[in-house]
């Protein structure tokens, strides 16, 4: 099912949780809703499921306007951020509940629920009450309960946040597999960029209730629309050098360095931010854009990195292993085109 939202807005008293959100989720797509805490991810999801009335805008399921349709009639499966398993029912009864409401005969619903429990590997605990399950097991029950009624739209609100790293990886693939098997349009909320990138067809990045960018993970990383998108994605995070445009080139704030930029859109005197992904730096002795002094070295996994001073600003670069660097050494940095971005300092928009 295709889901379209138009000018979706949610206000709480005076606060705007979601602001003029426009987006189309294609049929069978798995979309990750990504953004920092409090950016309105759960609010968006709750409006899609119908449990939160919208302040403005419309929601369409295929061609039907469901904006004012109550949650009972939307046919949506929802996995809550805190599971919301019924404490007085066993695991099996919990999973059966949506079918019981649909008046599916008892034998059939037990069969279906058991199948679903197997799928999420929870079939060992069918007779337990939720409080006798770990957080991860509860989450899987919640997923099974959402899936068992074969919803038209599956909404998952940070469903993996309580799992350990290994199980999270497994479940992530599991969700992907289940989603592809069932072909259900799925929206998956997370604040974990890696999770979003690995699982989804498309990422919707949000901030303060505003849509920032919609694209696949690679495009989001390689071609960010604004400074927020660039800095939200990437580990180690993107470097930022503050400066201004002079004679069509980037000049560091204190005037100590100039970087050539081939960008026809820059305006003379414009204050800008030069975003540089750490892997877009190359320590190169001959041709270089910046001169820097190594301030501190550290390792991350197998990689060696260093904080280096450029003028009075600090950036992070990868050190190549075939050369011995020491703190205090001067290095010459070449910037690659790919992974270097110019942003307007005021608006944060990509130039």
């Amino acid at each position, binding site marked *: 099912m295709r889901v379209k939202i138009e000018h979706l807005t949610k206000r709480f008293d005076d606060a705007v949780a979601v602001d003029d959100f426009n987006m189309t989720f294609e049929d069978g797509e798995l979309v990750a809703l990504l953004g920092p805490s409090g950016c309105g991810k759960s609010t968006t999801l709750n409006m899609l499921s119908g449990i939160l009335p919208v302040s403005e805008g419309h929601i369409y399921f295929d061609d039907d306007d469901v904006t004012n349709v109550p949650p009972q*009639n939307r046919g949506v499966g929802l996995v809550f951020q805190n599971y919301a398993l019924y404490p007085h029912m066993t695991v099996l009864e919990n999973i059966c509940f949506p079918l019981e409401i649909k008046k599916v005969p008892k034998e059939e619903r037990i069969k279906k629920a058991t199948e679903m429990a197997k799928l999420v590997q929870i079939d060992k605990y069918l007779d337990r009450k939720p409080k006798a399950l770990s957080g991860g097991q509860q989450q899987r029950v919640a997923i099974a309960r959402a899936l068992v009624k074969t919803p038209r739209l599956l909404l998952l609100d940070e469903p993996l946040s309580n799992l350990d790293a290994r199980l999270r990886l497994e479940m992530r693939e599991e969700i992907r597999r289940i989603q592809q098997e069932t072909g259900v349009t799925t929206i998956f909320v997370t604040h974990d960029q890696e999770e979003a990138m690995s699982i989804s067809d498309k990422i919707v990045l949000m901030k303060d209730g505003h849509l920032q960018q919609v694209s696949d993970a690679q495009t989001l990383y390689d071609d960010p629309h604004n400074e927020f998108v660039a800095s939200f994605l990437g580990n180690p995070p993107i470097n930022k050098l503050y400066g201004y445009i002079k004679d069509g080139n980037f000049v560091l704030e204190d005037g100590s360095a100039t970087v050539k930029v081939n960008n026809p859109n820059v305006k003379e005197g414009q204050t800008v931010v030069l975003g540089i992904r750490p892997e877009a730096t190359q320590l190169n002795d001959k041709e270089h854009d910046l001169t820097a002094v190594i301030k501190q070295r550290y390792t991350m996994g197998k990689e060696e990195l260093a904080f280096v001073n450029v003028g009075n600003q600090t950036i992070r670069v990868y050190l190549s292993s075939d050369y011995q660097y020491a703190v205090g050494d001067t290095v010459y940095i070449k910037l690659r085109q790919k992974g270097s971005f110019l942003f307007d300092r005021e608006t944060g928009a990509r130039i």
Partner: protein
Amino acid sequence: MAKKNKNGSNDAIFNRKFEPLIYLIPFALGLVIFTLYPVVNVVIMSFKEGYRLSGAFTGVGFGNFTKVLGDKNFMTAIKNTFIYVFTVVPISTVLSVLIANLLNKKIKGIAFFHTAFFLPLVTSSIAVGLVFKYMFNRDIGVINTIITLFGGKPIDWLGAIAGTGPYNLAAVIIFGIWNIMPFTIILLLSGLQNIDPLYYTAAEVDGANSSTIFRRITVPLLMPTIFLTMIVNLISCFKVYNEVIPFWRGEAGVTGRNLYTMVYYIKEQFYTNRQLGRAAAASIILFLIIFVFTMLQRWIQSKVDN
């Protein structure tokens, strides 16, 4: 040095253990004098035959119990009390659950209904009973007016037909239900407010309508509170007395005997007949009945919980 330390810590332990007891003494003293002593004394009294207030008695044994159990009036009392308990408790529980559920909704003007339903709590049941006496009036009472409005025949709630008063108990039961509900509703309402509204939301998403949510989510999650109110009401209903008093000028029922309840019987044995030992024996029997039913209910609850 070491010795002093040891002494010091011993003192501390002593203080920690016994200091609270000192604070408890006034309360404990009250408990012993006004609760424990009378209870023990009632047990002793129940075995003393022909007991007088002076302390004299004619014999020791089960005489009081056999007398009481052989008394026709006591059997009437047991019968009436049981009918009263097993109508008032279930009916008031069901009604209270329904009303508490409504009061728990966020509707405009709900504060008015809260006040209206809780008003009986702050009124004396005897005073309200007098009001009910007029409401139950055969000719001018509002209850009969409503009944006739719907085409029914007026009922002689408080009067007698051939000396039996067949509707007397029904009137007392209706009054009893009304009387017990506010307290029950308050307890249930606090129970309802402890239910995470997320479960309702989840059930809505699962497709449940409000009656299914009430039946499958609200009531089961409210069960512990329902059991609590049932036990409390069961105990208080077995002690029914105030409710039979206001309608017939202090008599229990129109013929003076037909609405005997156990507490009424105890009171009459004690104050009117001066049969202190029998009153005590009847009290013990009442206690045993309440005890058995409370245990039964707790046993059922533990079965339900698993």
